[in-house]
């Protein structure tokens, strides 16, 4: 029982910590695209290829995946009652998010190896 409570508390904290980073990053990126949108492929790749930009972007994807996991998990647990269907959707969500994580890692790192 206490284990479950701690787990819920961790999810709650994780959701808020990632939310703060996501809010700051997305605000910055919207501003970036409004003020100085990339003009060419070369400029875009050079920008992302900078260590601090790619690290911030990888951190963004990491935060997004954990944030999405907690959120979608809560929604599935609230609305999907049949256990088998709920478990299937939870597993598919988890696998999908992990695939997105691996894919985003590959894409961001590819911009650095030029």
């Amino acid at each position: 029982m206490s284990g479950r409570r701690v787990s819920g508390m961790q999810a709650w904290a994780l959701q808020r910590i990632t939310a703060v980073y996501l809010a700051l990053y997305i605000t910055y990126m919207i501003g970036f695209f409004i003020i100085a949108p990339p003009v060419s492929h070369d400029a875009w790749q050079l920008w992302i290829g900078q260590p601090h930009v790619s690290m911030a972007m990888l951190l963004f994807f990491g935060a997004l995946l954990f944030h999405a996991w907690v959120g979608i998990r809560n929604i599935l647990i609230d609305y999907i009652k049949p256990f088998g269907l709920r478990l299937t959707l939870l597993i598919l969500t988890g696998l999908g998010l992990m695939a997105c994580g691996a894919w985003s890692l590959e894409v961001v790192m590819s911009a650095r190896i030029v």
Partner: protein
Amino acid sequence: MMTTKQRPIHLDLRRIRMPINAITSIGHRISGVLIFLLMPVGIFLLDLSLMGPDGFATVVALFNSFLGKAILLLLMWALMHHLLAGLRCISIDIHLGVEKPFFLKTARIVLLVAFPIAFLLWVAL
């Protein structure tokens, strides 16, 4: 004798009464699911834009197409609603804005303000 009122325990969205804060809250969930579903599309476009000048041009063309602009507007609403509703959630966590009139007022503000902000950003992008 006092009888305990039978309270229904369910999350049937068609039977639940929806005050303004509930609409803001369900909007928080809907916008979250929308962003979740668009995530692979975003990674795909990022991948394509980094593949080379042709890929970059394709992504620019997609963003300038009617469908691209429509989806971007939807995404901007989802992002702004989710962001504002999330900030409201965190402020309530630290006991700011829990009192009833203010609680409902911030729910209304989040619900209504997300649209014009999203639209303005979409026009600026």
